[in-house]
C-alpha cells in the first residue's frame, strides 16, 4: 500500500513538472503529428509496391507512429533523474522513509501516462485524416497497452543508465545513438516482406518491432491474436528485466553516495 501511494505521489510530481512546461508539452504533442503527416505524405505511394498488403498508408503508419512516439519520449526519462541527483532532491528523498522503488516507479508510471495521452491524440488525428482501425476499441486499447509497455521499458532503461552515467551529455549521446536505428530496424515505415532480408530478421529481435507488430495486428480487420499475445508477452518479459536493471542500478547508486 505504501509503495503504491508513494509511487503515485512521485508520478503526480513528475506530471505536474511536465504540465508546467507548456512549450515542452506543445512540442511533445506536435512532433508525432508531424511524423504522421510528413511520413504519411512522403511514403504515400509505397503501398503500390507489389506485396505491400495495405489499402492506406496512413492506416499502416499510425500504429508505428504511436509506438515510435512512446519510445522517443520515454527514452529521455533519465534526464530528469540526473537533474534530481545533481540538485540534491534525490538525497533528500533517500534520508526520508520514502519507498526506494517508488523513486524509479513514479517516473516510469509518468511515462506510461504520457504515452497513453499521446497515443490517443495520434489515433484521433489518424482517424481525421482518413485512417480506419477495423480492430475497434479493443484493438486500439491493445495498441495503447503495448506502447505503454514499450515506453515503460525505455523509461526504465533510461533511468538505469542515468544513475550509472550520472552525466547528462553521456545519456543524451547514448539515447540518440539507439533511437533512430531501432526505429528503422522495425516495420514502423515499411512492411516486413518488402524490406531487405537481413533487416526483417533483425526486426524480429527488436522490441520496437514487437510493439509495432502487435499494435498493428490488433487494430487490423483480421487480428492475429496469437501473434499479438506472443509479442506482448516478449514485451512484458523484457520490460520486467529492464525494471530490475533500473532498480539494481539505483541500489548501487545508493551505496555509492
Amino acid at each position: 500500500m505504501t509503495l503504491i501511494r508513494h509511487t503515485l505521489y512521485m508520478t503526480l510530481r513528475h506530471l505536474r513538472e511536465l504540465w508546467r512546461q507548456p512549450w515542452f508539452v506543445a512540442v511533445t504533442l506536435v512532433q508525432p503529428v508531424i511524423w504522421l503527416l510528413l511520413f504519411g505524405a512522403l511514403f504515400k505511394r509505397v503501398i503500390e509496391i507489389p506485396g505491400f498488403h495495405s489499402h492506406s498508408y496512413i492506416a499502416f503508419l499510425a500504429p508505428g507512429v504511436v509506438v515510435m512516439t512512446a519510445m522517443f519520449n520515454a527514452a529521455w526519462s533519465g534526464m530528469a533523474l540526473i537533474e534530481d541527483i545533481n540538485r540534491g532532491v534525490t538525497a533528500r528523498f533517500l534520508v526520508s522513509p520514502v519507498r526506494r522503488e517508488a523513486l524509479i516507479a513514479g517516473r516510469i508510471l509518468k511515462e506510461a501516462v504520457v504515452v497513453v495521452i499521446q497515443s490517443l491524440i495520434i489515433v484521433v488525428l489518424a482517424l481525421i485524416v482518413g485512417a480506419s482501425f477495423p480492430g475497434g476499441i479493443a484493438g486500439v486499447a491493445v495498441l495503447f497497452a503495448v506502447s505503454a509497455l514499450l515506453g515503460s521499458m525505455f523509461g526504465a532503461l533510461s533511468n538505469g543508465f542515468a544513475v550509472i552515467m550520472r552525466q547528462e551529455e553521456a545519456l543524451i549521446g547514448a539515447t540518440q545513438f539507439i533511437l533512430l536505428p531501432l526505429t528503422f530496424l522495425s516495420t514502423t515505415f515499411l512492411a516486413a516482406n518488402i524490406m531487405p532480408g537481413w533487416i526483417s530478421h533483425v526486426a524480429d529481435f527488436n522490441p520496437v518491432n514487437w510493439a509495432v507488430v502487435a499494435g498493428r495486428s490488433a487494430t487490423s480487420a483480421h487480428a492475429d491474436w496469437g501473434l499479438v499475445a506472443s509479442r506482448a508477452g516478449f514485451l512484458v518479459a523484457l520490460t520486467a528485466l529492464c525494471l530490475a536493471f533500473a532498480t539494481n542500478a539505483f541500489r548501487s547508486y545508493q551505496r555509492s553516495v
Partner: protein
Amino acid sequence: MRHAIEAEGLRKEYPKGVTALAGLSFSVSPGSVFALLGPNGAGKSTAVKVLTTLAKPDAGRAVVAGIDVTAQPDRVRRTIGVVAQGSGVDIQATGRENLRLQGQIHGIRGREIEQRAQELLERFGLAEAADRIARGYSGGMQRRLDIAMALVHDPAVLFLDEPTTGLDPEVRADMWSEIGRLAAERGKTVLLTTHYLEEADQLAGRVAIVDRGKVVAEGTPDELKRELRGDAIHVDLEREYNGTVTRALAGVASIRDVAVEGRALRARADDGGRAVPLVLQALESHGVEVSSVRVARPSLDDVYLKYAGRTFDAAEAEAEVAR
C-alpha cells in the same frame, strides 16, 4: 536514552583510498545543539551522511534517538529531519508543493498536511511566496524552505549540514536566529556542521573540532576559546628557514604554540604587543629576515591550528588535492 546521537569509532573510506572518517566519536545529549567544526574535507559531511542513513560506515557504531543507524535505517529516517549541504528543494514545484510532498512521504495526509504546510510557510516567512515556483526563490528563501521541509514531521533530531554556506552575511544572520529558535524548541536535538567558528560559537552548546576524520577537541565554545586566550602573532619571513626559526624562538618565554609553515610563522602570546619585539630580536640574532608582522585576536585558524597542528587553509588545500 542517555544520548540523542552517538557516534563511536566511525570509519569510512571512499574508493581511491580517500579516508573520510578515521575513527570519529562523539555524543550529543538530548535537547542540545552540537556543532561539528572543521574545514572542507575534514569528514563532517560524511559523518552526517552516515548518521542520516545515506552512507554506510566501514566500521563503528552510529545510534540516533536510541536506534542503531545501520540496523534499522528506516526507523531512523522517521525520527530525523535533514537539511543537506546545498539545497534539496524541487525548484520546479512551489514551496507549498515541496512541503506537501515531504509531509506525504512521512505519512501525513489530507487536511493535516495542508495545515502543517501553512504553519511552516508562515513561520519561515514564506507564506507570500508559498504558491510560487521555487526556482524564483532567493538563496535564503530556498534555505528556509529546506529547513521547513526538514521539520514537517516534527523530528526529534535535526541535522543541519553547513546550513549557511553560500549565503550572504545578512541572510546568514537571519538563519542564525532561525536556528537559535529551533534549538529553543523543547526536546529537539540539533547537530550542525560548519566551517565558521562564529556560527558554532553562536548556536552550539558544545563543539567538536574535526580534522582528518577525527574529533581532535571537544568542549563548550567558551572552554575552547579559553584555551586560546591571548593574541596570535603572524610573522611573514623573507624565505624558508626550516629548523632555524624554531630554535631561535625556543628562548622566548612569553610565546607559545609556535608553528612554521613555509614562510609563515605563527605563535601565541598573552600580550602580543609586548611579545613582538622579543620575537623579532630572537629571529634577528639567528639571521632570520622578517618581511612583516601582525598581531591578531584568536581566529578560527588559530583554534584549528592549535588542535589540528596545521592551518585551516593548509587542511582545505590538502583535502582539495585528495579529491
